[in-house]
């Protein structure tokens, strides 16, 4: 089984990097996160400058002239994590839309599913390689927060928590995109669904005024954003990890179900 899985993963990697989309997404994501991270850093420095200028007589922010809420964590890390999350939401469906839909459109799913492979193996390899690509995206953009963590003596746990949070969040979004791709042979349809579903799941605040408090609480718990924010603050909560892993598992199960259901067409 390991041999088959390794071969399948190699095939998926080859197909992923045979298309220019992977390189474009990688470049755009790393560039966008760099620009926005730098922007938050500049804003933070300007803020410090303003506070320090006004309290120049008393010395720098170490002397208490800068409010404690103005710090690198709140002004750079947290808003950057929000931006990074949004960028993941924008770029990942471009990667996931192809994965199952292209196979179905080209008819190569027939080749795979008649060669003794279990549908769960096919889906697992596709999900695993896409998650590895998410990790690669995050590694590419990790340089920016890493430099700040080192320079600002913030503590490596903040960087680790941020990256882990992004990884869980990215894999959950990718998994939903892959599930969408598995139900269609059209990459356009897969992309539209891959955008629509995570965007709907992102935040249910728009619904909270129209439903009862109980339902609103459930919706808050179901929203992607409500489980993502704490990672940027360096807090890894088990419930958030379980939530994202649950979404990723659901996406994989839906992909397997779609492959099985396609037999009964």
């Amino acid at each position, binding site marked *: 089984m390991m*041999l*088959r899985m390794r*071969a399948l993963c190699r095939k998926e990697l080859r197909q992923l990097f045979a298309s220019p989309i992977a390189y474009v997404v990688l470049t755009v994501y790393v560039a966008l996160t760099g620009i926005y991270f730098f922007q938050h850093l500049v804003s933070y420095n300007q803020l410090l400058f303003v506070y320090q200028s006004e309290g120049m007589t008393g010395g720098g922010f170490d002397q208490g002239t800068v409010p404690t809420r103005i710090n690198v964590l709140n002004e750079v890390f947290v808003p950057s994590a929000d931006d990074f999350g949004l960028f993941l939401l924008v770029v990942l469906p471009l990667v996931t839309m192809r994965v199952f839909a292209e196979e179905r459109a*080209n008819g190569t799913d027939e*080749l795979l599913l008649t*060669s*003794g*492979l279990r549908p769960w193996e096919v889906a697992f390899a596709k999900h695993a390689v896409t998650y590895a690509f998410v990790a690669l995206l995050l590694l590419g953009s990790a340089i920016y927060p890493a430099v700040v963590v080192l320079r600002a003596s913030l503590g490596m746990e903040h960087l680790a928590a941020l990256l882990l949070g992004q990884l869980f969040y990215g894999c959950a979004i990718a998994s939903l995109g892959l599930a969408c791709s598995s139900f269609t042979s059209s990459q356009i349809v897969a992309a539209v669904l891959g955008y629509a579903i995570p965007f709907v799941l992102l935040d249910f605040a728009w619904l909270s005024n129209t439903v009862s408090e109980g339902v609103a609480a459930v919706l808050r718990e179901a929203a992607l954003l409500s489980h993502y924010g704490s990672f940027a603050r360096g807090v890894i909560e088990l419930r958030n990890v379980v939530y994202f892993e649950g979404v990723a598992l659901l996406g994989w199960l839906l992909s397997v179900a779609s492959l099985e259901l396609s037999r009964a*067409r």
Partner: protein
Amino acid sequence: MSAKIEAQRVSKRFGSLVALDALSLEIAAGEVFGIIGPNGAGKTTFLRILTGYWLASDGDVRVDGLSVTRQRFQVQARLGYACEQPKLYADHRVDAFLRLMGELRGLSGARLRAAVAVASERLGLEEVMHRRIGVLSKGFRQRVALAQAILHEPALLVVDEPTVGLDPAQQIELRRIIAGFRGQHTVILCTHQLHEAELLCDRVALLDRGRLAAIATADEIRAGGSLEALFLAKVGTHSGFAP
């Protein structure tokens, strides 16, 4: 090594459309069995059910006693399938693709290298082994499809429309290759080319509108004149041919 196949009242419905209607067939081990019929007769549908790609609405197919419905992975381990209009990974080189398919079939190391070498030799692929599949001619792509189907030396080889769209020289060459499979596998050959079925097959089944319209041995076909005569007699009027 060859397999016996029994199709037992196999039906496939797509909504109100009946693609296969209680089809029953028996194919002996080692036989080269042809399936012919007009477009929409249910030939490819039957092959897709036999290979476990589709689920039958009713009935079952057994390969050496193993049910495709309940034991499809064991059945798939015994068969090689070259589907219609070869569906291959165009971005792979031929050697990489064959290695991939061999690994997916559980081959590794020396066994994998030997299987790829044997398949490429049998199919005459040596000169294109380092080329990308996407740039190959249709004839070579069809050969690659056949090569991946025989890598694991399956008991049953299922070949769907192998010569469609090929020039006459490629058709002749591919028929020679398929004839070479005799004695090594049970072969199910689905084709539109009546003379191809006549040349290669021990028996031929004629499907029409999802049903078995006729089944004849090579001798019976010769005694009746030709497969074309049988085809026209059974389905000529509604397939657009006038006998």
